Every structure is written in structure tokens, then in C-alpha cells.
């Protein structure tokens, strides 16, 4: 058993042989393949299906899932509970009627595991029973009843595990733990891990993809107490925690069956480590270091893990992070938490809430356990090309850069307003108006709503305004390329007057055909975004400020928040066919920049220059985030010098006010090799964007894009 490390490194061995075997089996698809054998529970025998309400159908589906889904108990597993239905891996409630999915499920949130661990599910039930009394006889009553129903279903599923485990030798600890959790508060570290796992698994069994959140924050006190009492050793605790990570690999199927081939390992099950708690005290504890040990040893990338860094982060911790990062796979990403917290408080969250931040399963920031979150992307490059420059119409002309920029801003504002109108019409109850906001009916999602603060109390589900915070975040995409386009037009047409506006339009319409010298001149002469060039970076900062101001103008008009963010995730791929040639020397349909990263191949000054450019924007105006993808060559982080360099990069990123960065260490040649011999690289993971993917499960186009980023980056 050799757990793959891309750069020829050898991973340390700390875990027991049986735990390593369990990891090996899980990573090599044993349980994912098992799940595919039972895709969903059938509801075909329901005679009155057609006459049932959506909520009734949902409740029935959850009941059948809880009582009929296969129970899985893996050899030597230390934690019990498994999401065993294949359709859940495809982001659906795994129940069908007439061969069709009953309903889709929920993702992009981190649920409230703190309440589960500290107070237990019984506490949630008490809340649900009280809420039912409040809502009796109102239109909220069906949801309130559904909450009780789903808690009952959880109990039925829980009892099935207790029954199965009670007679199995070797699982006494699992049985003992489940007798207490998740219903009662966890009393020790082991129970706390089991409690989180069981609720996580139940949500996933029902098709949802929640994030995990701040694992060291949730578990640290329990471990500290156990270590103090001498009831667990660090080695034992590491084994238990390892099983949490390993069981999270139970959806690895080896094939890419979701989202256009974007990999088999992205189920938004993110984990955050480190950073301050609500009182400003650093969280980092033994659990942090154990989690890093597990990641280092097993190379599990299925929980994209992020660390919250600040100006006071212990240099010893930074060095440990750098050691783990060097194994590649993009396994650790970093937040500059001072910037994030500033951003959230400036936006209007209280300091206490802001300090709790986690993410939605990718990297978009949210207050965990009480936030409905969705983001709505748009391609700012396409807006420039299609709207402002009218598809490069020959009569398009501007007298100055400022005129062009002003016209562009009008179009960006229209794009933001279109997003606002569209979402409002989808979420608002029909026949109501914005200022008298009532949430409209959406797909049922009671199970996840149980674990989102505000839903039970208000009688509204997760997608119907139930959570304490409801966030819809417009995300600007194509940013670097829109900025670079504007900058090159400014230089070429207005400053240097190399050619007229109309001439440039013709050149671009012709996709640079016959204008290779000019194209080369542009590429050679103008340092684009990501090269620490103040002139282009100023346009970048200005555009982001203007965009976030447009979002703010619309914020507060109705019952959801509308904060700005930047992302493409992988959309630069699907946007490519709609894009024309760009002024910065790119031809039509090229796959261009992702997230807040530079245009591939345009960054010539190295990692520090990229970070500097990125940090020149007022990133605090982007409360849901702006991600920087940073590709590093293995040779640049070799040896002790390499560790120092990586630590220095992280420190510089924090000092300059960075928001979120995803460093990945891998050589493009290794990726090419993996493309040709996938059988040898089953567990080579890469950071795609907000998630990691097993490289070999990406489809060809995605693989090419990732290789391209690494080659040029």
C-alpha cells in the first residue's frame, strides 16, 4: 500500500495497518462501487403518489430511505453509518417514482454540527416539537410536521445500526457510542467524532452534500479533556479521526458521473482548520495537528481542507502546513481570516458571527449552520465583448478610455440587476412585491433544514427563507480577462495610438488572422494582471470596487443578502465557446482565467507578483470571497529552502490582505503522464477550484485545462 504522492515523496506511516487498509479500499472505490449497486429506493408501489403534495412525497422518500437503504458496516471501522445509495452521489434524493428522481437535494452549506455534538439530536427534537405547537393550524404546520417526521426517520435508521451492531463482535465501541450519540451530547472525543459522522452520513444518505466546517473547533475541547483524563492517547485519537476522513471517501466511484466530467471527488464536504473562535482566541489544537497527520499520510483529497491564517499564526503551524502542502494534490487551501472577518463585519455581520465563518463546501464564505447560500455567476468578459463592444461592431467607437469604461460599467450593472430580478422572481411568493417579501414555495428539503439554525423555529425550510441568513451572491467571472482586455485597449488605442478603435475591432473580429506581429507585440509589451503592474492592477481593483458597489445598491431591498464575490470555478471551460478573440492577444474560444487568477500563461513574474496583484483590490468588498489559484512547481518547494519559501508565501499572502488562496504543487509533465497512464495515477488529486478532483476521473477537456494552468502558471 503506497499512498500516492505526486512528487516522488514518501509519505510517513503513523496509522495502524488495518486503518491504512480501510483507506486503501475506500480510495480504490470499494465502497463507491458498492453504493452504485443500489442507486435508489423505489416509490413505484405508491398508489396515491400523483395526488400527494411534494412535501408528502419527500417525507415518504425519506422514510423509505431510512428504513430500506442498505446498512453497511466495514471491516474494522471505528465509526458507524454510511450513505449507501448511489443516486445521492449524483446530488439527488435517492428515491424514484416511475424511474424518475423524486427531487433534487441540497449543497453549498455547512450545517450546524456544533448543536449536534454539544446538545444532541434530542435537543433538536425538543425544538421541533415546540415549533409544531406554535405552527399548528397555520400554513407552516406541514413543514413543522415534516421536521418531526424526518427526526423519526433518523431514529429508525439509527436503530437499524444499533440492531446490526449489537450482535457483531469487534464493534462494541461503535455500539456503545451509538447508544449515546447523536441523540445525547457527546461526552468524549470518540463520541463527538461519531456524532458528527452519523449526522453527516444521514444527510448524505438523503442526497445532501453538506460541508463539515471547523473540525478542530468542534472536537478540540473533547480531545483535550480525554488526553487530560488519560482516557485516550494521541495515537488512538489519530486512528479515530482517520476513520472520519476515510469514511468520507465512500463515494469514490472512479468515474466522473456528475457535472460534465469535473471529477468523482467533489461532494463539497469541506473542512476548515485553525483560526480564531468567536472570542478571538486561536482555535488550533491537537485535532488540527492530527488532521494534518492524516492528510499527510493518506493523501485524502475528498475533504477539501482549508486553514484560516492570521498575522499571529504560529510559524510552527505554518511550517507543518507547508510540509503537508508539498505532497501536492492541492490538499490545503488558505484563508487570510483577518480580511475575511473584516469583510463580513463591514458587510453587516456581528463580529461574533463573522469570527465563526466557514464555507459552503467550496470556498465561498458563510456563517455555518445558519446560512442559506447560493451564488450566481456571470461572465464579465462576455459582457464586454457582446454588450459594450457589440460583438466588435466596426462602428463601435469611444473617445477615451474613460468613456469605454463608463459604458462597460453600465453593462456590468445591468448584468447584476438581471441576476437580482431573476432570483427575486424565483424566490418571491407569487403575487407579492419585493417590499412585502414572502418566500415562495421551493423543493422540499426538511432533513437539511433540521440542521440549519432558524428553519425549525420559523417553520420555513432551508430554501424558503428559514435560515437566519439568506445569501445570494452574484459572482463576477472572467475577471482577469475583462481587465486585461480593457487595459490593452487603453494602451494600444488611447495611450500609444497604435491603431484606431475601429481597426482594433476589425482585428478582433478576424480573430487576429493576418495580424500576428500585432498580437505578438501585445503579448510581449503589456504586463497583464498577475505581474504586479500597477497600471493594469488599478483597473482590476477599480472594476471590483464598482461591481461590489452595484451589488450593495440592490442589497437590503428584499429579504435576502446580496453580497459580491468572484468566481468561475471551472466555468472558464463552458464559457470558452461563447467568447471572441480578446484584445490581450487571445484567440476566440480559448480557455482563459479562472476565479481571481491571471490569464493562463500571462504571469511571468512568479508567485509573489501574482499574490501582490491579487491583493491590490479591496478584497473586503467581496464578502463571499475571491479565490486565487496558485500553481507551484515541485522544484520550487524542494528541501528546507522550499519549506521556508512556502511559509514565506503564506505569511506574505496574509500580510498583504489576501482572502483565499489554493496553492497546488504539481508538475504538468506528471499530469500528462497520468493522462496517458491513468491506471498508475488513480489517486493523483489536483485542486480544480473550490474542490479537489482525482485527476484521472476528470474528462479530457478538464484534464487539459488543469494541465494548461500548471504549464503556463
Amino acid at each position: 500500500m503506497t499512498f500516492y504522492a505526486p512528487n516522488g515523496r514518501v509519505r510517513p506511516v503513523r496509522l495502524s495497518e488495518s486503518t491504512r487498509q480501510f483507506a486503501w479500499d475506500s480510495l480504490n472505490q470499494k465502497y463507491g462501487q458498492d453504493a452504485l449497486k443500489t442507486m435508489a429506493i423505489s416509490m413505484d408501489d405508491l398508489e396515491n403518489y400523483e395526488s400527494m403534495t411534494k412535501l408528502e412525497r419527500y417525507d415518504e422518500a425519506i422514510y423509505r430511505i431510512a428504513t430500506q437503504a442498505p446498512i453497511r458496516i466495514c471491516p474494522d471501522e471505528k465509526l458507524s453509518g454510511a450513505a449507501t445509495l448511489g443516486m445521492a452521489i449524483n446530488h439527488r434524493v435517492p428515491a424514484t417514482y416511475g424511474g424518475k428522481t423524486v427531487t433534487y437535494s441540497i449543497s453549498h452549506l455547512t450545517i450546524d454540527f456544533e448543536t449536534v455534538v454539544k446538545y444532541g439530536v434530542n435537543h433538536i427534537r425538543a425544538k421541533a416539537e415546540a415549533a409544531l405547537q406554535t405552527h399548528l393550524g397555520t400554513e407552516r404546520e406541514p413543514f413543522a410536521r415534516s421536521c418531526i417526521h424526518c427526526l423519526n426517520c433518523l431514529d429508525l435508521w439509527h436503530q437499524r445500526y444499533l440492531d446490526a451492531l449489537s450482535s457483531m463482535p469487534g464493534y462494541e465501541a461503535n455500539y456503545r457510542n451509538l447508544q449515546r450519540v447523536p441523540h445525547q451530547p457527546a461526552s468524549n472525543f470518540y463520541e463527538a467524532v461519531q456524532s458528527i459522522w452519523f449526522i453527516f452520513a444521514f444527510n448524505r444518505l438523503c442526497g445532501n452534500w453538506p460541508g463539515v466546517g471547523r473540525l478542530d473547533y468542534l472536537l478540540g475541547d473533547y480531545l483535550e479533556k480525554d488526553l487530560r483524563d488519560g482516557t485516550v492517547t494521541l495515537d488512538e485519537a489519530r486512528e479515530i479521526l482517520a476513520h472520519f476522513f476515510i469514511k468520507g471517501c465512500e463515494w469514490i466511484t472512479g468515474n466522473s458521473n456528475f457535472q460534465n466530467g469535473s471529477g468523482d471527488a467533489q461532494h463539497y464536504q469541506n473542512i476548515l482548520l485553525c483560526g480564531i473562535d468567536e472570542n478571538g482566541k486561536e482555535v488550533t489544537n491537537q485535532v488540527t495537528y492530527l488532521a494534518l497527520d492524516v492528510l499527510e499520510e493518506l493523501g485524502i483529497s475528498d475533504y477539501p481542507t482549508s486553514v484560516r491564517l492570521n498575522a499571529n499564526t504560529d510559524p510552527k503551524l505554518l511550517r507543518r502546513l507547508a510540509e503537508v502542502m508539498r505532497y501536492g494534490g492541492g490538499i490545503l487551501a488558505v484563508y487570510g481570516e483577518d480580511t475575511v472577518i473584516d469583510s463580513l463585519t463591514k458587510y453587516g455581520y456581528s463580529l461574533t458571527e463573522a469570527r465563526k465563518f466557514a464555507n459552503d463546501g467550496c470556498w465561498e464564505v458563510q456563517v455555518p449552520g445558519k446560512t442559506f447560500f447560493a451564488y450566481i455567476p456571470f461572465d464579465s468578459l462576455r459582457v464586454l465583448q457582446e454588450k459594450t463592444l457589440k460583438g466588435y461592431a466596426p462602428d463601435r467607437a469611444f473617445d477615451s478610455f474613460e468613456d469605454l469604461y463608463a459604458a462597460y460599467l453600465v453593462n456590468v450593472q445591468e448584468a447584476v440587476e438581471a441576476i437580482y430580478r431573476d432570483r427575486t422572481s424565483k424566490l418571491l411568493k407569487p403575487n407579492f412585491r419585493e417590499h412585502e417579501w414572502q418566500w415562495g414555495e421551493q423543493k422540499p428539503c426538511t432533513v437539511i433544514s433540521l440542521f440549519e439554525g432558524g428553519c425549525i423555529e420559523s417553520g420555513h425550510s432551508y430554501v424558503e427563507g428559514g435560515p437566519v441568513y439568506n445569501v445570494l451572491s452574484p459572482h463576477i467571472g472572467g475577471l482577469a480577462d475583462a481587465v486585461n482586455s480593457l487595459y490593452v485597449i487603453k494602451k494600444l488605442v488611447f495611450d500609444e495610438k497604435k491603431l484606431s478603435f475601429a481597426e482594433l475591432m476589425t482585428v478582433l473580429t478576424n480573430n487576429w488572422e493576418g495580424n500576428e506581429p500585432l498580437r505578438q507585440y501585445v503579448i510581449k509589451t503589456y504586463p497583464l494582471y498577475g505581474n504586479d503592474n500597477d497600471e493594469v492592477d488599478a483597473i482590476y481593483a477599480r472594476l471590483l470596487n464598482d461591481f461590489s458597489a452595484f451589488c450593495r445598491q440592490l442589497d437590503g431591498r428584499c429579504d435576502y443578502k446580496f453580497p459580491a464575490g468572484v468566481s468561475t470555478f471551472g466555468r472558464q471551460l463552458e464559457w470558452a465557446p461563447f467568447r471572441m478573440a480578446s484584445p490581450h492577444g487571445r484567440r476566440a474560444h480559448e480557455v482563459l482565467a479562472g476565479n481571481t487568477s491571471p490569464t493562463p500563461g500571462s504571469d511571468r513574474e512568479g508567485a509573489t507578483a501574482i499574490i501582490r496583484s491579487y491583493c491590490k483590490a479591496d478584497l473586503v468588498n467581496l464578502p463571499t470571497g475571491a479565490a486565487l489559484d496558485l500553481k507551484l512547481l515541485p522544484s520550487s518547494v524542494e528541501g528546507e529552502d522550499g519549506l521556508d519559501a512556502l511559509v514565506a508565501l503564506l505569511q506574505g499572502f496574509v500580510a498583504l490582505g489576501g482572502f483565499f488562496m489554493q496553492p497546488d504543487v504539481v508538475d504538468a509533465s506528471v499530469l500528462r503522464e497520468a493522462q496517458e497512464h491513468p491506471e498508475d495515477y488513480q489517486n493523483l488529486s489536483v485542486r480544480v477550484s473550490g474542490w479537489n478532483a482525482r485527476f484521472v476521473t476528470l474528462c479530457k477537456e478538464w484534464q487539459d485545462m488543469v494541465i494548461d494552468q500548471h504549464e503556463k502558471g
Partner: protein
Amino acid sequence: MKKDNLISVTEIQRFCMHDGPGVRTTVFLKGCPLRCAWCHNPETQSTAQQILYYPQKCIGCGACVAVCPRGAHRLTEDAHLFDRALCQGCRACVAACCSGALEPSRKEMTVEEILTVVEKDRAFYGALGGITLSGGEPMAQPENALALLRECRRRGIGTAMETCGYFDASYLEALVPLVDLFLWDFKDGNPARHREYTGVDPARIRQNLCRVDALGGVSVLRCIMVKGVNMQEDHYEAIASLWHSLQHCKHVELLPYHAYGGSKMIPLGMEDNGRREWIPSEEDMETAKNILIKKGIRLK
């Protein structure tokens, strides 16, 4: 006419991790008194302005042909011919070249201009990183190197210097207090071979290093390993004797020869002089390391 306060630079490279501790910005100064057969940066040897020509970047647009006053550039059906004998280094072709196929090897920069670049990465230097003067031989422009280092000191930027050690000893007393770490090349302990392969006698290099050490200068010895040339007992013994004589040397680093520097001869209009047979294998490097460790040397 070259002014005294202008520094001849080939390149400034940011985010260097292997030119001293931490994140460093490396400034390559042009001009070197040595002519090592294995030179990794041949474009830094001459102090003259040389036009670098990268054939793979040329798109054959012919702009250089049109502007060259001496007819040094010619385009044939399938090649761009550059006759350096005719070139006077006026750089008209460089300005005209759209694709970056023609570049000047020398830029003249003031201390302020260099420091503007160096300052950019201050957030990443921390306690370890900073500027590294390299080349070429930084002390081939002694006043310039000192001026640059002095300004770094004034601004609190960490300093390191890569040096072949062959320079005027009268600068040492001024230099040593300005440099946090000398990355000192020790190419061959055998004087005859040293002369043959670098063109100069090693005695001065050794004397300078000993003087730096006596003045309290901290150093790292960097020894290039060229298979079949200097990977010999007499060189190892010389490294050991030098190491044991130094008070402030942190460790010795062995750098395997690579042939990449040879390919950098092409833009200078010369043949690739990379020698594959000089590349030591991993085993060769292990052997050398073990020999040196046995001699009591601290290796990195």
C-alpha cells in the same frame, strides 16, 4: 557613454528559493572575470551589450531587417540569419521586434530602479529573505555592488551575494559588513585545473574567502560537481581543508553540473557547449557527499 551610477544588469528575478534563505529577489549583474567551461549564465560573462536572439520566438515578420542600419539581419526562405560581426549593439532591432525574439542582454539600472523591484516582495522576505546579488560576478562592478548593498542595509532588506570570489581585495572591508551571507563558489582545489577550466588562478579566491571569514563574514561554500573534471580526491581534500580553516562557514553545498547553461549559448550566437558526459549521476553525487562527510564537512 556609461555613467558610473548605472548598474549593468541582465535580469532581476523575483521569488527565487534557492539563492539563499527564504524568498529572494536575485539581481544578476553583468560581467565576470572567469570563463568557466560549465558556465550556467553565459549571457552574464561579457560586460558588452549583446543582442540575444531566440529563434523559437521569431515569427519571421522582417521588422528587424528593415530597421538594422548595418544589414546584420537577413531573412531567407526558412531562416532568420543574424550576423553578429556586423552588429554594433544599437538595439534598433530589439525595439522593432514584436515577439521578443531579440532582446538586449544588458539593462542599465540605477540603485533606485533596482530597489523598486526588490521592495515589491518585502512582504514575503520575513526574517530570512531579501536580495541576492548574483551574476556574473557582482564584484566585477564593485562600486555598484557596494552602493546597492548599502542601500539595502539602510532599508533593512536582507542581503546575500553569490560570488566566484575573484575580485579586488581592497573592497573586502567595506563589503563584509554589508552582506548577511556569502554564497561562495569554490570550483576546483587543483590550481592547474582551475586555470584550465575557469581561466584564472584560484589563489586569490581562496585568500579573499579567508579574509572575509576573518572579518566575520558568514558564508556557504558552493561547489559545482563536474564529472570527470573536478570530482577528484585532490579537490575534495581542498574543500575539506578550506572548510576546516573557516570560522563562519555554515555548510557546504554540492551542485551537480547540468547542461542547461550550454543551451543558453544559442541566443548569444554560439554553439550549445553543454557536455552531457559532465553530468554526475545521483550515485556520483552520493559518493562525493559521503567522501566529504567523512572528511568532517557539514553538507546541506
